[in-house]
């Protein structure tokens, strides 16, 4: 009930926006009304292509983001803990990080062709840096009193890492993953617009090219937005884990 109350203002705003859209679009010959967008979506859902596009995009994000997580977390922990690793690698990452993933598209196509590997690579490149940076910062900001306590008890390295360094950094790692997944979802759509035969990005570009189906363009945009919201919700569920609650509770 309280949640409903909280959601009420945004529901009202969305309703107003849709109504305005409907009024404006009613006079246009090419810009679709909400009704046409819903009908177009249903058409795609019925013939199954909608699910194929969604599945293709999610698969690419899953692969690229998954690889980025596997590399970024160990690397970030290492860079946070070992000063030499930090001063050696950090400048390189700080140079690579501001390069838009879109700028990598030509190289990605050159190296990986126009198959799935290109967008997966782009997603990887886009999401790996924010996660490395957040993880490293997480290690750097561990409060000294906790490290001192661990030092006081003289625990072995493995225990120090598993019971102090990693869990102390975990909240920041999760923040990094949230940012990383958000960027990954942004990039997959952009990458699919250029090179592929499937995915939500492809759906948008293809719908425009194959007969100005702007109803499907808008449908694709809205679906991208909704799935992005869902993915962020999944990441936020990680923030609810008891082991990281201490960091977010206040």
């Amino acid at each position, binding site marked *: 009930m309280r949640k409903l109350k909280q959601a009420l203002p945004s529901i009202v705003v969305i309703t107003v926006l849709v109504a305005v859209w409907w009024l404006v679009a009613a006079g246009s010959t090419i810009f679709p009304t909400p009704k046409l967008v819903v009908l177009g979506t249903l058409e795609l859902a019925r013939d199954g292509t909608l699910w194929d596009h969604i599945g293709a995009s999610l698969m690419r994000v899953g692969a690229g983001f998954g690889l980025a997580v596997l590399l970024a977390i160990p690397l970030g922990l290492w860079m946070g803990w070992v000063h030499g690793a930090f001063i050696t690698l950090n400048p390189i990452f700080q140079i690579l990080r501001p390069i838009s993933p879109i700028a990598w598209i030509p190289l990605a196509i050159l190296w990986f062709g126009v198959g799935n590997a290109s967008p997966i690579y782009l997603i990887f490149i886009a999401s790996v840096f924010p996660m490395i940076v957040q993880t490293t910062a997480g290690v750097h900001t561990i409060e000294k009193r906790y490290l*001192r306590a661990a*030092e*006081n*008890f003289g*625990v072995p390295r493995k*225990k120090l890492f598993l*019971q102090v360094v990693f869990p*102390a950094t975990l909240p920041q790692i999760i923040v990094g993953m949230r940012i990383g997944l958000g960027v990954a979802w942004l990039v997959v759509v952009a990458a699919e617009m250029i090179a592929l035969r499937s995915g939500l990005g492809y759906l948008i570009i293809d719908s425009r090219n194959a007969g100005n189906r702007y109803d499907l363009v808008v449908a694709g945009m809205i679906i991208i937005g909704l799935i992005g919201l869902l993915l962020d919700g999944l990441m936020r569920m990680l923030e609810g884990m008891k082991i990281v609650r201490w960091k977010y509770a206040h």
Partner: protein
Amino acid sequence: MPTKISLHGIRKGFPSDQGRLEVIQDLSFDVADGEFVAIVGPSGCGKTTLMNIIAGFLAADAGEVRVDGVPRNGPNRKGIMITQQGSVFPWLTVRQNVLFGLPDDVPNREALAEEYAELVGLKGFEPNYPHELSGGMLKRAEIARALVVKPEILYMDEPFSALDALMSLRMQNELLRILAKEKHTVLLITHDVEEAIHLADRVLVLSPRPAKIRAEFAVPFAHPRRVSSPDAQALRVAILKELGVTESV
């Protein structure tokens, strides 16, 4: 009783904008095995620095700390530090915290953890996370985590200062109850003279920076003590006088 901790000619300074800031100047004293020594001093006089040097977290510029006759060159589990801020790991449950310092090959780890959780009055809270506990409970968890590794020395740096007055008093009584069961050598830093009289066998009064021992008082009262007794109050006034506070009664 044999000497447990021995400080000889400790000196410590830090670089500052106005040149070198001497914090501790030529400090020497001994603590006997099983003795409870309280160190009081004006705030900012270098008490915490001194404790960090004794516990091994900080190196002195000159002089030597010996524990059991062996020069100290780093912290170890023989002496556990308990601070005002506390360092109970918020990402571990109470049970995991208590077990933290125990090596994996100690037999009956779980039973030991339970025993110490019970000793400090945390029975039933073992599955809880620290953020679900009150400040007093957190201190208990920290004490249990320290005691379970059977340290010979407890270094307590204003351990109860962050608690409210009532809880601080209650924790002092708890500490005495625990120490009656398990004899430890305790070094306590506090700015609370009554706390020192309540707990310690001996009180050292430090001067303002650079810290030196200004006076030394034995506390000859048997436990349980009443800090409100005339003798204890007379001692309190004498210690406060050394700290530069005169009371008009």
